[in-house]
């Protein structure tokens, strides 16, 4: 079964096995794949979660209303490095995972978890991050999931251009290696052969 999972290279892959489909906002945790995760999480997360709940209940409520930028959500500066992003994501994902959320606040936490997930996906991909930053700079704070920072059409087109002309160049090189064969009677080919002939003699 193809895994659309988010495997973070270099991370401990036992920790994170998520099968939440990127297309659907609703969470779809498969309990069968999570036993490892939840057992570890309950060891750490529960204590932290309890403490955190008091302090940021109020804050969390406010957060939900406000439009937070991805950076604010992850609690990192805008110039944060990929490592910082990863760390922040790990922490928050552990904190807000539905399995470890306090009973009365499952929905809230799940929503949070999804947002954190989206934030990570966008910011960890350099191109999508660049686009997001651009939008932010322009003052567009779009609702989460309102805009999927998919690979921009224009940039994709330019990427295609590059592939295209690279293959055109390879083809030209190939053709040019046999261009001046005897059979080619064009003026240019004759002149080039003459020149080659002369330089061979010398």
């Amino acid at each position: 079964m193809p895994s659309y999972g988010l495997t973070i290279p270099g991370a401990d892959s036992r920790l994170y096995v998520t099968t939440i489909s990127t297309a659907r906002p609703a969470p779809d945790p498969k309990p069968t794949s999570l036993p490892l995760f939840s057992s570890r999480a309950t060891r750490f997360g529960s204590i932290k979660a309890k403490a955190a709940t008091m302090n940021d209940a109020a804050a969390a409520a406010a957060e939900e209303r406000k439009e937070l930028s991805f950076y604010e959500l992850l609690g990192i500066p805008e110039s944060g490095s990929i490592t910082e992003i990863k760390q922040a994501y790990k922490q928050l994902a552990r904190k807000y995972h539905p399995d470890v959320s306090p009973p009365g606040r499952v929905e809230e936490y799940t929503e949070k978890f999804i947002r954190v997930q989206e934030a990570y996906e966008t910011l960890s991909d350099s191109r999508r991050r660049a686009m997001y930053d651009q939008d932010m700079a322009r003052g567009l704070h779009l609702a989460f999931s309102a805009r999927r920072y998919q690979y921009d059409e224009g940039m994709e087109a330019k990427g295609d251009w590059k592939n295209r002309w690279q293959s055109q160049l390879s083809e030209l090189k190939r053709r040019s290696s046999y261009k001046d064969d005897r059979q080619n009677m064009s003026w240019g080919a004759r002149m080039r052969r003459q020149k080659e002939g002369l330089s061979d003699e010398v």
Partner: protein
Amino acid sequence: MAVSGTFIRPNQYFSSCVNTPSPRLNPSCRKQFCLKASAGNSDGEDRKLTRKEKDGGCKIEYTTEKPATPLLDTINYPAHMKNLSTQDLEQLAAELRMDIVHSVSQTGGHLSSSLGVVELSVALHHVFSTPDDKIIWDVGHQAYPHKILTGRRSKMHTMRKTSGLAGFPKRDESVHDAFGVGHSSTSISAGLGMAVARDLLGKDNSIISVIGDGAMTAGQAYEAMNNAGYLDANLIVILNDNKQVSLPTATLDGPAMPVGALSSALTKLQASTQFRKLREAAKSITKQIGGQTHEVAAKVDEYARGMISASGSTLFEELGLYYIGPVDGHNVADLVNIFQRVKAMPAPGPVLIHIMTEKGKGYPPAEAAADRMHGVVKFDPPTGQQFKTKSPTLSYTQYFAESLIKEAETDEKIVAIHAAMGGGTGLNYFQKRFPDRCFDVGIAEQHAVTFAAGLAAEGLKPFCAIYSTFLQRGYDQVVHDVDLQKLPVRFAMDRAGLVGADGPTHCGAFDITYMACLPNMVVMAPSDEAELMHMVATAAVIDDRPSCFRFPRGNGIGAVLPAHNKGTPIEIGKGRVLMEGSRVAILGYGSIVQQCVGAANMLKTRDIFVTVADARFCKPLDTELIKQLAKEHEILITVEEGSIGGFGSHVSHYLSLSGILDGPLKLRAMVLPDRYIDHGAPQDQLEEAGLSSRQISATVLSLLGRPKEALQFISGREWTH
């Protein structure tokens, strides 16, 4: 002393003031540096600050002061560019932009076309080595970066001024200018000629022709490509596509859609849907095959690539040029990569590299303007606001457009044709008023003329508004398709005579000569804007033969305009006398009559009263007027702002045929000298040509036997005795 590129290490300089944020992986950001070009030591005095924009581009802030350009300062000649890294080249491009905006803001000239090819110029000069390699810029108005990089930076403040740099490449000016240009679509032809010469002489330099998508609409470009494909000589053609075919690149209401079917063909070339689909297919194949497939995946990709390149049968391929593109014309790294690879091939034959650029790129006011700030006068760099001088009168072009519109309002058969010069000919106004009766044919004067002939053959009344100099390109069509068949096409020749800053490439010196020698053509010229309006009306009623009229660049003199801008047709072949005098008669043709009037006023101060007449028609001549002037005066001087063989010739021909020249009359013709007048201020050019009021007065005085006074006029000094 040549400053070698390695003398100053730009990287070191910049690493000390580079303001990189904490390192983050951002491969899409090409420019990792931040141009903090502070000329002073203190950080508080940053004059040219460029912020690193989130999307990876560097945003330049333009101010009115001279920008600090540390890297550009080290480049005096292309040789100094050879050792620069890609990063350096990008920085150089940014500095070049600043320099061009600053320079053009002080001198006026062509702005946005130069901005669009900054990266291209940098890449070309990095990879190729002029003057051995030849770069031919079509039209040449985009060659400002080229001029800066080839040793003329210090003279940029003299651009288009008298004795300064020419606005277009000129062989006399520098060895790096391989070919003189100004009219469009000549670069591929010239390039091919140079390539063939290279092959015959056994050399192996590279020839590069840079042509725009506008110039590509002209037939000559195809003639050249056709020949290039046939001859198969090594030649690089760069098609600079910025979707701006006509000039200025806007109608009155906004940007103009590119004219012609060719533009849509070029757009299709960019569509990558086919390639993308194929790639997607290839990717999914790779996925399905699974893990162990490095070789197979590579093969699949290669296969996909091969399929794409083989199927690239475009317009250019059919002509025999190998097509590469589209390429991002603002990506220096890509351009350098492509040029190096093509240069390294031994036998590529003719290659066409299609690059996409944006006119005015990097300077927001230009990007935002409807006409992209193509041709500008002095402006304010931060805002792009131009300092246009207020004149009490409008330009001749505008008067022409107004009166043509007036004529067309009452006569629905009147249509107008121009060749990609809606703004220059004033037909933008006509287009706005009568959108279905105005035709922009692209840069195709030959076609425009014959197209007009076709319209006339079917009973319409076409007005072909083409600059005097550009009508030269369609001359056979004027002779064979219009005059020979006596079709009533009206030619409105703007920019007749000397044109100032554009120089000899745009000078309309020859139209009197080449039009008046045609048997059926009516040839007339107004002496002021009111006369112009009357002549438009006159041309509108001449329905049995072709006619033409010429008018200069510049503004009207303030003549009293006819009511509602509607002219009245004047009697054909009838001139008029403006000032009465004795002994000397000055017969002027066209707007130069104003200089004659000026001369007459100067001579009044010397108690000399000359007759000034406005001939109005060169064909048919007002023979009655000439006979009368010849009878009543000792001296007859004809004056025109045209070459030899024009008005003066026709007058002298008549006088000799009628026997008047056998008599005592002294006849002198004042024409443009038998050489090309360089670009400069209009008054300077007129003086250089010997046709200013002063010089006409001096001629009169020397003919009257008062040479000393003549000298005074020439030298401009008043001697009292």
